[in-house]
């Protein structure tokens, strides 16, 4: 199996990371060598194995649905790259 430039472009779109031609070629090379190494898993028969989905074998605890952090809007907004004091600001979405 080989990951070509078209696939790299497709994944970069899904991951929302823009890559130029040069980066794409480097990534294709890296990913191919990594997947070559990952392919080793195909040696194992796993048809009857249950997948391990959680290492901590506990069920989620329930809690009451109540507000614990109050009046922290200002603090949170402070970390935004762009805001108008009340809202996060992003480039225009609707034409």
């Amino acid at each position, binding site marked *: 199996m080989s*990951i070509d430039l078209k*696939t*790299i472009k497709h*994944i*970069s779109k*899904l*991951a*929302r*990371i*823009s*890559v130029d031609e040069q980066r794409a070629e480097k*990534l294709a090379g*890296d*990913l191919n*060598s*990594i997947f070559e*190494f*990952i*392919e*080793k*898993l*195909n*040696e*194992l028969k*796993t048809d009857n*194995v*249950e*997948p*391990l*989905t*959680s*290492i*901590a074998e*506990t069920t*989620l*605890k329930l*809690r009451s649905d109540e507000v614990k952090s109050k009046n*922290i809007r200002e*603090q*949170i907004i*402070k*970390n*935004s*790259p*762009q805001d108008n004091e009340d809202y*996060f600001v*992003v*480039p*225009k*979405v609707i034409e």
Partner: protein
Amino acid sequence: MSDITKQSLTQLIENIKNKKLSSTDVTKAFIDRSEKSEELNAYITNDFTSALDKAKKFDQKPNFNLKLPGIPMAVKDLFCTKNIKTTAGSKILNNFVPTYESTVTENIWNEGAILLGKLNCDEFAMGSSNETSFFGNVQSPIDKNLVPGGSSGGSASAVAGQLTPVTIGTDTGGSIRQPASFTGIVGLKPTYGSCSRYGIVAFASSLDQAGPMAQNVKDCALLHEVISSYDPKDSTSIDFKRNNYSKELTNNIKGKKIGIPKEYRVDGMPKEIEDLWQKGIQNIKDCGAETIDISLPNTSYALPTYYIVAPAEASSNLARYDGVKYGFRAKGENLIDMYEKTRSEGFGAEVQRRIMIGTYVLSSGYYDAYYLKAQKVRKLIKNDFDEAYKKVDAILTPSTPSSAFKLGEKTNDPVSMYLNDIFTVPVNLAGLPGISIPAGHDSKGYPLGLQIIGKAFDEQNILNIAYAMEEKINFKNKITDWWIK
């Protein structure tokens, strides 16, 4: 006292309690040495001024009942610290100031410790050499141009170089144990669910654990006792009875059964590592334990499994960095363009590589072939350990397949970099505790570590074994202060 920074955590606490040293004396000493150690690049952010204020306040009204009374401590910059910049070693969080405190750091401050600053690490904890940090590589106190290991490289360098008495790191695939091994210190990766993940910048949520790094086993046990707690704010935190690990520490390990897994004798492993392991086996027998040859048949599949599971979880966790609510934002012509440029400019090469791997293995048409397959193999790896623990109480292995390497030696070959974690990754996949202790030097004089892997929640047992072995090994770290002019 000029040798304050050479003292262990346990000694410092004793001296503070006996009033031979004040918190201010100790804090000043570590700040002085940290300031002289800029060349190590161990810190990303320092908080020295307010550390001194806090130390003075402590001395005015000391509380000696606390477990870490007035002890200064720097922590990995992956832990959110309220009102103090937390970067995760990334450009994308370069200006991020958390509005809350991680549970493990809160536990530390509640026991009287004082924050010295935030320590360098691989970007989002992705790396084995601390060379992926946006803030530059970290130098090892062992030798110039030697990597300290990663991802908790700043933490390892700071403890080995005596810039902090102890510290905490995080370990997703070996990020505490491998740098501990490379720098001649002790590092514990606790059982998954033992330490809260709340407020730790997430990398791979089913693998991440915080843990202590220290000069010796006793200090490590004490710090673990402070950070391990049940926390309702982390849905995977486990409510079990935690020990007073340092108080219950004993070097009596007579009759313990220690497994020696044959699959850890990997191709191309240097003879020095094999010799170290054999010495460790003899050593553990001299302590009165019994060794038993065991098999963990799926060991060689652990790394390929890890390089599906960890990037998959990372690609999902790191989706939040979009330049909208916090962190770095690049200019874009429209919203999508802004996202794509922000992530392209904000993440470094290794992080992008892992996000790409993760996105690919989770993408339509590939999920079953990769992600589901990896989860099944993960189960087999866990079964191997379950089977082994029917016969043994703990497992002894080398911590790493080699000693520390030079800066730049492996940066162009991701797979060879990944192979560093071959002995540590299975432990994370199975959610078990593992501790690395310094056990000898190679021919170049670089430290080598041995790893003791325990049953889930059996930290006390591996700490005891480490404690007994430490006494027999009597390791001396060779720190020459080469970076201090």
